[in-house]
């Protein structure tokens, strides 16, 4: 039976700070009453503001950063009522906080270089993924030169917290549709360019998170080149804990998730190998 993770709690969290980030984003730092243990990159929390304008159902957000004092940071793009209410919250506000949820990225070896392809707010799970790969805290320790982040968006304002990613010491390639920062074009063109100019070995492991069409394109590229590829999905969720059956995905009949034709993004994911599901 798919169940929520054993360490998941439904509890309250205090807002410690909300800082604007990029054109329409915020960095939200919270402290759950009962702090979580060390979190694997790619896991998420469901958050809800007590604000009257907030929808009744919490919204899912990837853990962006975890601090030693037990606080957790989220990188949030304001989309609609749920994210707007969170962005408006002020220090001291008590949020509903359900988590930690989901599987997170698996433990990878250092066998092949990793390329993370992020679109806009899809960069959120990759900050800790890079930190953890560098430290070897989940899986093998990876050298900085074997980690590449291709970070794309429509324009500069949608590359949230770009400086912080650059400060991690790995190769960060920005790409914008309007050319306002970095490569002029989308992330896929940027990735292909790297191969073309032999800035990347042919065999890499791809990790991607962002708008669906972008993830599909990356997964397609991986399939064509026969590369391992992992996606962190941002499916619409009802409960986040596996009890509503709302976040269904179609599984691949020959894939690692077994014979059942559907999987749950919240408890089976949100991180999936592209051999497991139909995008």
């Amino acid at each position, binding site marked *: 039976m798919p*169940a929520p993770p054993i360490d998941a709690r*439904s509890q309250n969290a205090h807002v410690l700070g909300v800082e604007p980030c990029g054109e329409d984003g915020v960095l939200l730092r919270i402290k759950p009453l009962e702090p979580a243990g060390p979190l694997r990159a790619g896991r998420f929390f469901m958050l809800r503001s007590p604000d009257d304008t907030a929808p009744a159902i919490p919204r899912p957000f990837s853990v962006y950063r975890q601090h030693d004092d037990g606080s957790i940071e989220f990188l949030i793009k304001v989309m609609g009522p749920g994210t707007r209410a969170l962005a408006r919250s002020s220090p001291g506000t008590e949020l509903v906080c359900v988590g930690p949820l989901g599987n997170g990225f698996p433990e990878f070896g250092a066998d092949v270089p990793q390329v993370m392809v992020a679109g806009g707010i899809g960069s959120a799970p990759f900050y800790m993924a890079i930190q953890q790969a560098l430290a070897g805290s989940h899986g093998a320790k990876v050298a900085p030169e074997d980690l590449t982040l291709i970070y794309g968006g429509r324009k500069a304002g949608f590359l949230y917290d770009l400086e912080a990613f650059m400060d991690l010491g790995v190769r960060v390639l920005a790409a914008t549709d309007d050319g306002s920062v970095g490569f002029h074009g989308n992330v896929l063109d940027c990735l292909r360019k790297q191969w073309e100019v032999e800035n990347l070995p042919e065999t890499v492991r791809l990790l991607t998170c962002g708008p669906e069409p972008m993830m599909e394109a990356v997964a397609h590229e991986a399939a064509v080149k026969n590369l391992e590829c992992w996606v962190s999905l941002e499916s619409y969720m009802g409960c*986040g*804990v*596996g*009890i509503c*059956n*709302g*976040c269904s995905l179609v599984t691949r009949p020959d894939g690692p998730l077994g014979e059942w034709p*559907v999987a749950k993004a919240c408890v089976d994911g949100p991180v999936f190998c592209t051999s497991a599901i139909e995008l």
Partner: protein
Amino acid sequence: MASMEVDLAGISLRNPILSASGTFGHGVEMQHMVALDELGGLVSKTVTCQPRPGNPAPRIAETKAGFLNSIGLENRGIESYIESVLPEVESAGTVIITNIGGESVADYVAAAEALAGFDVISALEVNLSCPNVGGGRLPFSTDPKRAEEVMRAVSEVTDKPLWAKLSPNVTRIEEIACGAEAGGASAITAVNTLLGLGVDWRTGKPALATVVGGYSGIGMGPVALRCAWQCAQAVDIPVVGCGGIADAEDVLAFLAVGCHAVQVGTASFSDPGMLGRLAAEVEQLLDEAGVKDVQDVVGCMEASK
């Protein structure tokens, strides 16, 4: 400390609060997040004879005052339920009710037959009212004769108490309740979801892939309360209220119109830990009001029989 125990057609419940089918998995999955022994009982997701992969996505959408779903009874079928779920629920420490569904009378009968020998199941809830199968036609919950027929056929193959779960999408729900009672139901669950629809006018896309789905959550509360009251007025068997319950006040309102217990659904999505706290909150309200026994609230509304 008010007494919270209730008797529901021969089943003794620690308190009158149960999970609603399809909104809490099979219940045991939640044991690390919710103290299951703080609940009166767990109602399983609807189980059908054959596995059902469910409807295509999107299957859920939040609305201003509630929630739309078209899950389509996704479940792995009764064999899998018996093999992998039933052994787990034994340790839940609360009463287990299994909800069964089907597309024909024979389906319901086969499901009830398959479960008849499992003592861990205290009652079967017969889902006569899923709006997400058979194109939302609700054949068994819109005609008292068909409701009676299903309940009678099921009662012939099992000794377990049977709860008939009804749909609010009818003109006179009390007639359906009477049909179910005549067919052998020992309780009525009122109600399942209302039929609903959502649309994004900018893109022209319906919110659910099936266009029409079930509407639940706080917006349906007064409709469900009215349905529960009408059922309680019409039948001699107990009624389990369901629909839009979000807090302890709501629980007591359903009891006041004559329900003996309630089920909580969509509210668990807002706070998955809530079901474990609700009974204590109800008890506190009763204590504050000087009510000694939760059963004293049952049917206390003036216009109730």
